């Protein structure tokens, strides 16, 4: 956000969009980039981290090859989102927020994607899928390894 002086470049109000930009470029917030940002904006590194860690969108590790977000919003909760989470958790032996050791697969939970009418919903690599079951999610993941998906 533009600050009071209309300063777009270094103004404090640009911090969150600057973080978003870094994350867009690298897929996460690398430490060097944050140090540089802190220097450029004249905001201490601990402040930069303080802000970045407050918001759930910001990640501090490189992204996995594939990321599955499972919705556990209210509608998805009452329509079986947990069952999907349990089944994926068992299959990959990861908890939400974790990545498999080979860094191929990350599991995340979100609280509502706004597609509640099609609950339960998951997002696989940015693509949203509604009316899911543990089986159909398994199939989505299996299809990732199909050659046409370029994996």
């Amino acid at each position, binding site marked *: 956000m533009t600050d009071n002086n209309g300063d777009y470049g270094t103004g404090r109000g640009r911090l969150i969009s600057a973080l978003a930009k870094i994350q867009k470029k690298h897929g996460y917030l690398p430490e060097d980039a944050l140090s540089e940002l802190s220097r450029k904006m004249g905001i201490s590194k601990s402040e930069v981290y303080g802000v970045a860690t407050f918001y*759930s969108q910001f990640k501090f590790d490189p992204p996995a090859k594939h990321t599955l977000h499972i919705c556990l919003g*209210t509608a998805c909760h009452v329509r079986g989102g947990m069952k999907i989470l349990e089944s994926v958790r068992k299959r990959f032996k990861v908890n939400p927020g974790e990545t498999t050791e080979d860094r191929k697969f990350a599991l995340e939970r979100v*609280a*509502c994607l706004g597609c509640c009418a099609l609950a339960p919903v998951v997002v696989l690599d940015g693509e*949203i899928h509604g009316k899911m079951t543990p089986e159909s999610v398994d199939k989505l993941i299996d299809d990732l390894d199909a050659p046409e998906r370029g994996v």
Partner: protein
Amino acid sequence: MGFKEARQKAHDVWASLVDNKRPLIFAGAASCGRAAGVQSVISAFRTRLAEKGIEASIIEVGCVGMCYLEPIIDIKMPGKPRVSYSNINPARARKLIADHIIGGEVCEDLAIGTVGEQRADGIPGLFEHPMLAAQNRRVLRNCGLIDPTNIDHYIATGGYSGIEKAIEIGPEATIEMVKKSGLRGRGGAGFPTYRKWEFCRRSPGTPKFLICNADEGDPGAFMNRSLLEGDPHAVLEGMLIAGLAIGSSKGIIYARAEYPLAVERLKIALAQMSEYGLLGDGIMGSSFSFEIELEEGAGAFVCGEETALIAALEGRRGMPRPRPPFPAVSGLWGKPTNVNNVETLGNLPQILINGPDWFAELGTEKSKGTKTFALAGKVKRTGLVEVALGTKLRDIVFSIGGGILDEKKFKAVQTGGPSGGCIPLEMLDLPVDYERLAEAGSIMGSGGMVVMDESTCPVDIAHYFISFTQQESCGKCPPCRIGTNKMLGILQKIKSGKGTMRDLALLEELALTVKRASLCGLGQTAPNPVLSTLRYFRDEYIEHIRNRRCPAGVCRKPRKKAADNHNSNSVADATGGE
């Protein structure tokens, strides 16, 4: 281009859709349509049309609210009615091309209705469908019908006449009109919109900021997403009107991070506004100037609260602060700031065009107009509905929603998300307005409605919401930070069959304390899901305690090994599960 020419051009563009020369295919391509797979349907259309050498236009529209029937495709052949089809997959897309586009025959088995004035034999109008017939679609009037990426469609259906009117009558008369309409904020609290505006207008200090709160973070709610995806210009025109009224020249949209499509549509719409001279200096030849900036959130529920939202815009941790001073006096960068919800803003153009009496003809004494609700959960017809305030819950769940899935028994409707409560069967005839919902121990909130059946456990739901608010608590004030955590612990105990009656009393006491002592709305309302389930479903809590049994069969006793299996414990904590 002046606005008059723009309007003429828009009417020409629209006329070419009504009186089309080539086949038109309208695809419901909001997030819900996408989640149902519309993109593969669109590519099936593209491929097959190319193979057959047919020249047709594919127009991506928003959502007509019947999300459970997505993907929805409308086909309009030259000189024929526009027919809506539901549950289309790639194979059915090819059938529609063969039968309807090439063969000229409507596929009756897939059709759900016709849109517009023309009718097809044997097919009712779409708006006679039981899900739509009882609705009053005013804010949502364009959703699913026009191309949200085409400003001409919006203008041709009356768009930007509201700001034209506001410019003509001036700020004071605009505020007066909104006052007469009785419009109250749709973001949750229901504060009269005109009063906030007057307050901000009178505050000394420039610039003044107008913020559109598009942070919709209630899990189970998608009203604002749907409106932004389906008719973004309605909200943007509302921002112009509100900006004019409060004397601001600077608008900001704070959009939720999880809504990439809404953000994309807003970006397109903003560029079109600039192109049409609807942003910048001297809008419509007047002395009114206005700019709009789009800011994306970074994922924090509490940032929907206006003072936290302002902190986020200032590049800080999104923590609320005590009010007063209210943002109207000291908001963004210490300047007078007015925050309005997406739907509040979306209502404005039509109030200006049709007048306050038209708006107030629907609704109850203190709650005027219509409200959109996101109908989800264990109901047959899920989607986005808009009804007159004062409509009975029963009508929403049963007439519009078609009743409970799999013929199970209705148990409760949860309204107001993590700040709201559960309304039981006995209260189904409750007219939905701000006051009645509050009396029932819930709140209107922003409009989420999650229907629960007999297989939903109220203790589990309370636990679910408290685990959400406990995680989303910003941590600034102890009652919310510690209180929600303690409540979560007790609920976990009760869920797993280890609770005592003493825990129940403690839970209630804690809930009341957190409600009273928290700094912001998040903590003040977080106990509502617990208090309302205790009020209506206390016997189910007691059943968990006395007989170690979950009547709905949801809460399982912890697995024996859970205690020494660190992993499974942490998952249960992190997910609010088990």
